[in-house]
C-alpha cells in the first residue's frame, strides 16, 4: 500500500511536470502580437496555420524609447500590410552580439537584423543581396556613398539604418576659465589645454575623456590613428596596422593617460558615463557623437573637428536580411521584406525616427527634408521637437567622415586586436611598436 502511495506521489509530480509542459502552450499566446500562437513560438519556421507571412526583425536599442517607436511602427505596418505578421524585437547593444550569435548557431536567425558589421555573415553565405529586396525607389534614396560602403566586391549586402559622426566636444566655459580661448586644433594643443585645465581646477575637473574599453576601444584607435595620418588600411585597402603614424597615435594615448589628463579608468569606462559627465560639466573635453550632450544640459559647449587631420569618425549601422530556405513561400517573404523597407524608408516616417533617436539620416530625401522640417517631429521620450539646424550642420559634416573598414572579413579580429593593443601598451606591458607589429603579423601575416 505504502509503496503504491509513493508511486502515486511520484507520478503526480511527473504529471504536474508534463502538465506544465503541455498546458503552458496556450499561455504563451499572450506574447503581444500573436494571432496564431504557434507562429510566435517558432517564429522562424513561418509555417503557422494562417496565410500570414511572419517576418522577424531584431532592432538595436539606440535610446531609452526605441521600443515605443517600433511598437507603433509594428502596428502601423500591420495595418497597412494585412498579410504580414511583423515581430519586432529590441535588443540592447550590450547583448545583441550574443543574442544573434546564439540564434544563428541554432539556425534561428531573424529575417531582418539591425547590427553593426556584416562581412562575417556574407562569408558564411547567410545574407540576401540588397538588390533582391529593395525597390528601385529605396535604392535611389540612399546616399550613394553609404550604399557603396556596404558592398563587398561590388555586391551590396546591407542597408544603412542611420548615421552618426564623431567630433571633438569642448566645454568652453571651463577652457576659457583655464585660459584657453579656443578649441584645440592640433594634438599638441590638446596637451596644452589639458595641462591648463589640470593646473586651474586640480582634481575637480577631468580634462580629457578617453574610452579604450572592450566596449568601443576601436573608436579611440580611429580618432587618434586617422588624425595622426595613419589608419587601419593603406591606400590599396590592405591592412596597415603597424604604420609609424599608428605607433605614434597609440603612444600619444599612453601619454594622455600617464600625464594624468584622462578619466581614472579608461580601460573600463565606456563612452556613456563620460558623455554624462561632460553634460554635467565635470569633464572638459572628449570626442563623441553629435548627439552626446544631454538635452537638459546647461554646459556651454562647442563641437569642432578632431585635432590633427580633422577626420571625423562616421558610424553607420546596417540593416540586413538573412536567407531562410525553410520559408514556405519565398516570394511572399521577399515581398513582405520589400514592403518593410519601403515602409521604413518613407521620407516622413524615417525622418521621424531620426529626430526621435537624434541620429543622422542615410537617405537623400530625409536629409533635405530634415534640414528645414525637423521641428515637425518629436524627440523620443519628451515633448521637445527636432532642431533643423542640427541636422543641417551635421549632415554637412558626414562627407568628411571616415568609416570602419567593415566590409573586410578580418574586421572583427582587427577591432578586438587594436583594443587589446591599446590596453596592453597603456598598461606598460609592451611597446606600441611591438604590440602593433604583432597584431599586423597576426592579421595579415
Amino acid at each position: 500500500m505504502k509503496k503504491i502511495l509513493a508511486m502515486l506521489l511520484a507520478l503526480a509530480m511527473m504529471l504536474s511536470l508534463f502538465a506544465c509542459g503541455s498546458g503552458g502552450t496556450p499561455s504563451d499566446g499572450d506574447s503581444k502580437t500573436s494571432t496564431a500562437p504557434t507562429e510566435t513560438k517558432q517564429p522562424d519556421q513561418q509555417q503557422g496555420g494562417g496565410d500570414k507571412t511572419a517576418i522577424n526583425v531584431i532592432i538595436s536599442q539606440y535610446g531609452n524609447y526605441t521600443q515605443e517607436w517600433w511598437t507603433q511602427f509594428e502596428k502601423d505596418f500591420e495595418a497597412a500590410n494585412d498579410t504580414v505578421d511583423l515581430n519586432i524585437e529590441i535588443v540592447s547593444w550590450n547583448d545583441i552580439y550574443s543574442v544573434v550569435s546564439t540564434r544563428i548557431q541554432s539556425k534561428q536567425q531573424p529575417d531582418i537584423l539591425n547590427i553593426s558589421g556584416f562581412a562575417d555573415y556574407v562569408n558564411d553565405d547567410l545574407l540576401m543581396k540588397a538588390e533582391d529586396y529593395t525597390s528601385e525607389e529605396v535604392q535611389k534614396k540612399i546616399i550613394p556613398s553609404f550604399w557603396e560602403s556596404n558592398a563587398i566586391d561590388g555586391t551590396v549586402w546591407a542597408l544603412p539604418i542611420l548615421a552618426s559622426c564623431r567630433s571633438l566636444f569642448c566645454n568652453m566655459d571651463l577652457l576659457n576659465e583655464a585660459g584657453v580661448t579656443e578649441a584645440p586644433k592640433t594634438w599638441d594643443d590638446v596637451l596644452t589645454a589639458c595641462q591648463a585645465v589640470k593646473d586651474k581646477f586640480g582634481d575637480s575637473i577631468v580634462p580629457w575623456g578617453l574610452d579604450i574599453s572592450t566596449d568601443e576601444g576601436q573608436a579611440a584607435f580611429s580618432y587618434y590613428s586617422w588624425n595622426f595620418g595613419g589608419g587601419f588600411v593603406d591606400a590599396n585597402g590592405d591592412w596597415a596596422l603597424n604604420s609609424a603614424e599608428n605607433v605614434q597615435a597609440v603612444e600619444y594615448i599612453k601619454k594622455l593617460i600617464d600625464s594624468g589628463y584622462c578619466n581614472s579608468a579608461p580601460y573600463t569606462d565606456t563612452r556613456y558615463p563620460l558623455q554624462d559627465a561632460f553634460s554635467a560639466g565635470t569633464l572638459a573635453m572628449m570626442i563623441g557623437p553629435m548627439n552626446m550632450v544631454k538635452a537638459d544640459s546647461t554646459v556651454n559647449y562647442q563641437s569642432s573637428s578632431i585635432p590633427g587631420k580633422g577626420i571625423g569618425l562616421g558610424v553607420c549601422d546596417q540593416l540586413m536580411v538573412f536567407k531562410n530556405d525553410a520559408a514556405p513561400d519565398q516570394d511572399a517573404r521577399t515581398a513582405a521584406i520589400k514592403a518593410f523597407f519601403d515602409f521604413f524608408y518613407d521620407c516622413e516616417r524615417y525622418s521621424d525616427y531620426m529626430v526621435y533617436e537624434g541620429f543622422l539620416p542615410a537617405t537623400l530625401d530625409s536629409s533635405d527634408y530634415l534640414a528645414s522640417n525637423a521641428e515637425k517631429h518629436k524627440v523620443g521620450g519628451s515633448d521637445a521637437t527636432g532642431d533643423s539646424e542640427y541636422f543641417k550642420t551635421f549632415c554637412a559634416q558626414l562627407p568628411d567622415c571616415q568609416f570602419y573598414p567593415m566590409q573586410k572579413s578580418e574586421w572583427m579580429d582587427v577591432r578586438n586586436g587594436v583594443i587589446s593593443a591599446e590596453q596592453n601598451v597603456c598598461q606598460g606591458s609592451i611597446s606600441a611598436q611591438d604590440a602593433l607589429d604583432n597584431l599586423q603579423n597576426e592579421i595579415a601575416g
Partner: protein
Amino acid sequence: MRTKKNPITRAALYLFVFVVCVIILYPYFVMFTTAAKSNDEMYAIGGSLLPSVWNWSVFVEIWQDAPVFQYLMNSLIVAGGATLLAILCGIPAAYALSRMRFKGKGIFMGAVIMSQMFSPVVLLVGIYRLMTNMGLTNSLLGLVLLNAAFNQAFAIWLLRGTFTSISSEMEQAAKIDGCGTVQALIRVLLPVAAPGIVTTLIFVFINAWNEYTIALTLISSDTLKPITVGINVFYGFNFIKWQHLFATSIFATIPVIILFLCIEKHLVSGLTSGGVKG
C-alpha cells in the same frame, strides 16, 4: 550557541553587526540618493552626499516609462513557478537519497553535482536550440522549467543535507502507527525539516529571480521580460539613465525582501519547534 554575556563581548557583537549592516546597506543608500539626484549632481566631483533637491518624480516616472510592473509580475511568475517545481521534484529525490539505499546512489549524487558545473552562460546555445525544438522560446513556461532544472541540484543537495541530519526514528514510529511512507514524509519529516526547506525555498527563489542570461536570450517580447532583462531599457545606446536604473532596482528588491520577511517566521518557528528529538 548561548554565551554568557559580558559587556565587552556584547559591545563587540553589536559593533560587528553594525559594521556588516553598514556595508550591506551602503549600496542601497547610494542607489536611493543617486536616483533622486540630478545628472549634474551625480557627476559632480566633490559634491554633496545627499541631493540638494530631492527629485522624487523619478520614482513615479519609471512606472510610466517602461512596463516595470509587468516585468515584476513576470519575474514573480518565473521565480515562483520555478521554486515550486524545483522543491516538488527535489523533496522526493532528496528523501530517497537520505533514507533509501540503492544502486547508483553515488553516481546520481555525482551526476547532480556535475550538472551544475557548466554555467548557464556556457550552455546558452544548447538551451536555445532545445527550447526552439520544444517550442518554448519566448515563453515564461520555458523560463520556469529551466530555472527549476538549474536549481534542482541545489535543492536536492540542500534538502538531502537537512533530511540526513534529522533522525528517522520519528518516521519509523509513525510507520508503526500505520502511516505510509508518503504520509510519514509529509506529516513527520517535512515539519521538522522546515528550516532547511525554507532555506532551500529562499535560495531557489532568489536564484530564479536574479537569473539574467537565459531570460535575455530566450525572451524576445517586451511584455514577457522579467525585471532583470527589462531593466535594460534604461541602459540605452547613447545614455544610461542611472536614476531610473537605480530607482527600478530598489523596487525590484522589495518583493524579495517581503517574501523573506514572510518566510523568516517559519525559520524562527523551526527554531522553537525544532526539538529534533534524537
